[in-house]
């Protein structure tokens, strides 16, 4: 039966095939496979990010039909969307909540690729374009947060755009460039709007195109120590159906949060309300008033909370330098390390460790010590043992990974870089937790 003659094609299908080359696309899909092994579950997260991104695009386009940028109109237009436009409340809520789920899925995807070391040769550029997309989506979130022009967004943006000022020499210029002036005004709103609906989508198209092309070109990475469970699974339809089940689950979660969040008690939407407060995301609040006092307990979005909390905890002076400047530069260095991971983690590809790898190892130990110190501080000052637990855990893990590395010998992947990753995760979790509870 496998060698039966192909079914006759309809004239319409033939028409499309001749013009669009659909046959080659079908052939491509038919040949695309997904490896089967114990870590294969993590492959669905890339598709999940793509699905949530498409939700963003669709709802964003619908919002564009009614949204009016400008300090005098933005708030009113969003108010109009959620109160007068048919299903406007759903479109706006989908856009707002799916943006947060997108960041969550993106972080899971990034972490899974990092810990499975899927970035190793020849997928370095797949990683770089993926991290580029991560930064683009962070910027999407930051710029989109201001667009409703409400009180919370205004002050959060005022605080957030102040951070680059700590960068030596170019800081004040950067702040002015981002804000379109010395303060957050209607000019900032116009700038953020342009960024959100034109510049970032263009960048996303480029990076996403490159990312998907590279994924297609190199296929899915199989971890070096994973035993394949059998022949690779066809992407279409077997893996795509798995993806789609995940997408519909995500859609169900999305609409449940949207409808229940406004009246759900805290904790009912666990774990989402541990990370972010959906009520605040859905409430429009009051219109931005630059002359009003900042809302009490104002904090940035959850995805920025660890940075905010770290900068808050840093002392005014660190080794004679401005503490905030040191913090901002450290985060900048961290972002650079994240981009360069495939080139620094030479051990992942089975190559001999170079100077960068050794520096990376030294950085892990150093950050581990800082982490443990911060953990102790958080317990002593805040009375939160969580920080200590995170710090001790991270420091222990680093020591263990270094010791294991020494025993593993040459030719085996180093444990230092996963340690760096765990450390970053622990650091982000601890700082976010402190940020949420203080």
């Amino acid at each position, binding site marked *: 039966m*496998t060698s039966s003659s192909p079914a006759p094609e309809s004239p319409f299908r033939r028409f499309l095939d001749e013009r669009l080359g659909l046959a080659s696309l079908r052939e491509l899909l038919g040949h695309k496979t997904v490896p089967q092994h114990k870590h294969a579950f993590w492959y669905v997260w890339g598709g999940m990010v793509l699905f949530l991104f498409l939700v963003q695009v669709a709802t964003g386009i619908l919002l564009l039909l009614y949204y009016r940028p400008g300090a005098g109109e933005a708030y009113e237009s969003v*108010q109009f969307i*959620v*109160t007068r436009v048919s299903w406007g*409340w759903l479109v706006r809520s989908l856009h707002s909540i799916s943006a947060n789920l997108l960041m969550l899925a993106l972080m899971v995807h990034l972490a899974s690729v990092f810990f499975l070391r899927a970035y190793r040769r020849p997928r370095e550029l797949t990683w770089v374009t993926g991290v580029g997309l991560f930064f683009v989506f962070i910027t999407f979130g930051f710029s989109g947060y201001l667009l409703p022009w409400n009180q919370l967004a205004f002050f959060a943006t005022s605080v957030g755009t102040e951070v680059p000022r700590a960068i030596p020499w170019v800081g004040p210029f950067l702040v002015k460039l981002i804000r379109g002036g010395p303060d957050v005004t209607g000019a900032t709103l116009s700038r953020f709007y342009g960024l959100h609906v034109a510049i970032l989508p263009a960048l996303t198209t480029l990076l996403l195109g490159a990312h998907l092309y590279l994924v297609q070109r190199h296929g899915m990475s199989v971890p070096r120590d994973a035993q394949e469970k*059998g*022949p690779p*699974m*066809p992407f279409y*339809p*077997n893996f795509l*159906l*798995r993806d*789609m*089940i995940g997408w*519909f*689950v995500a*859609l*169900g979660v999305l*609409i*449940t949060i949207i*409808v*229940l*969040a*406004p*009246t759900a008690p805290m904790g009912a939407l666990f774990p989402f309300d541990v990370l972010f407060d959906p*009520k605040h995301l*859905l*409430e*429009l609040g009051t219109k931005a008033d630059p002359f009003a006092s900042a809302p009490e307990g104002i904090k940035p979005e959850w995805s920025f909370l660890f940075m905010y909390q770290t900068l808050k905890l840093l002392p005014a002076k660190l080794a004679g330098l401005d503490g905030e400047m040191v913090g901002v530069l450290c985060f900048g260095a961290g972002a650079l390390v994240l981009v360069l991971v495939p080139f620094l983690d030479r051990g992942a590809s089975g190559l001999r460790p170079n100077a960068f790898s050794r520096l990376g190892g030294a950085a892990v130990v150093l950050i581990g010590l800082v982490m443990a110190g911060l953990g102790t501080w958080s317990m002593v000052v805040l009375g939160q043992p969580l920080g200590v637990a995170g710090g001790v855990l991270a420091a222990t893990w680093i020591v263990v990974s270094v010791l294991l590395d020494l025993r593993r010998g040459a030719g085996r992947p180093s444990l230092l870089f996963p340690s760096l990753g765990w450390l970053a995760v622990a650091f982000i979790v601890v700082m976010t937790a402190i940020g949420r509870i203080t």
Partner: protein
Amino acid sequence: MRRAALLPLLFAALAGRLAGQAAPVQDAAPPAPVSACVACHSDPARVPQPSAREPVANLADDIHGQRGLSCHDCHGGRADVDLTAPDAAARAHDAAAGYVGRPAPSAGPAFCGRCHSDPAYMSRFNPDARVDQETRYHTSVHGERLAAGDTQVASCISCHGRHPGGEKSAALAHGIRAVADPQSPVHPLNVAATCARCHGDAEYMAEYGIPTNQHEQYQQSVHRAALVEKEDLSAPTCNDCHGNHGARPPEVESMAFVCGTCHAKQAELFRQSTMKLAFDEAEMGECIVCHGNHGIVAPTDELLFHEPLAEGAATTGCYTCHPDATDAALAISTAVHGDLGGLQARIGEARAVLADASAKGMPVAEAEYELAGATDALVEARALVHLFRREPVDEACARGTKVADSALAQGHAAIGAFYFRHRWLAVSLLGIAFVILSLWLKLRQVDRRWRASEMSGPASG
């Protein structure tokens, strides 16, 4: 001539003395010249009586001292005498040099008025300063009685001066603070207590035969609540109705003008009403007949009701003058009461529904804003009561009810939408569950086919 010549010198002297208390004297600076008055009256060796040193001790807190004036600017005399000379005291206190010493109580207003009635002089300190205090004082009951020889009545320092020995002690002129200074006895927050120092003292006021419970009543009033509790300094205290320097009780016919200073709309409506003529003919005190005076409380719609108010109430209702149940006026007041109550109830209902919708997370800010229009209409309707006709009140209430109905409808629609969303969620989740189940079944099917083809693939290939 009388003040200007020595003013800079004495100001420098005073400033030097005051500065010397706070900061060490700078080495290079020459010693500042000191007024002979200040030098002598601050030296216990020369002036052993504490009461005679009190003026200098309090000059720093005194608005006059803060504006650069010193002793001789009010008391005259010579401030530049050589204190080592044997006749220093006589020369300083020389009547020929304009020395007046302590003025008699009856001369107080004229003493202060030398400067405070002089526009040219006062404009140096405040171009907008009023200079009619002395003139107005002479028109006040206080001024009239003082002119008649009654020195017990209040004059300038009675209200503006200090009472260091307690409320009943004699007033001292030194240490007079600016009216805007919260420690000043004539700051709006302190005026009532200052007036009550005399007017609340039954023994002190016995010979005048006027009540002494005004301050006690005022403490219960809506005016005092606005002034003290809401910290609204524009809210009225004694002087806002009675005047300050020209204080006297308002006449019956001017009562609506007094209240109308703030309640302009109500006063104007009352003047247009037929009730104005009736009140004038009966020599009734207009506003205060229904609302009371010193103990005025927040008016309620119950004033219009056809039943007596609670015993001891600070206000009186229509029933007081119209006790006959068949009185047509009482029918109007009862109908107006019903109109106002109806609108208020509708606003309350709309507010409650909107609050419920808001608690359910529904955006109702626009409806809440709209509802404010109904409250405005209710306020207007209550003001229109002062026309004592039903039609204008009816019209305002109808307008307000229409707005409240619209807000109420929006509130109900929002609550309806809330429950619709929950039903929609349930249906959608069912649909999503169905799709997931279908996909899962399809997945099982394609997985089975794929595994079968994989098993048969190598054999057939």
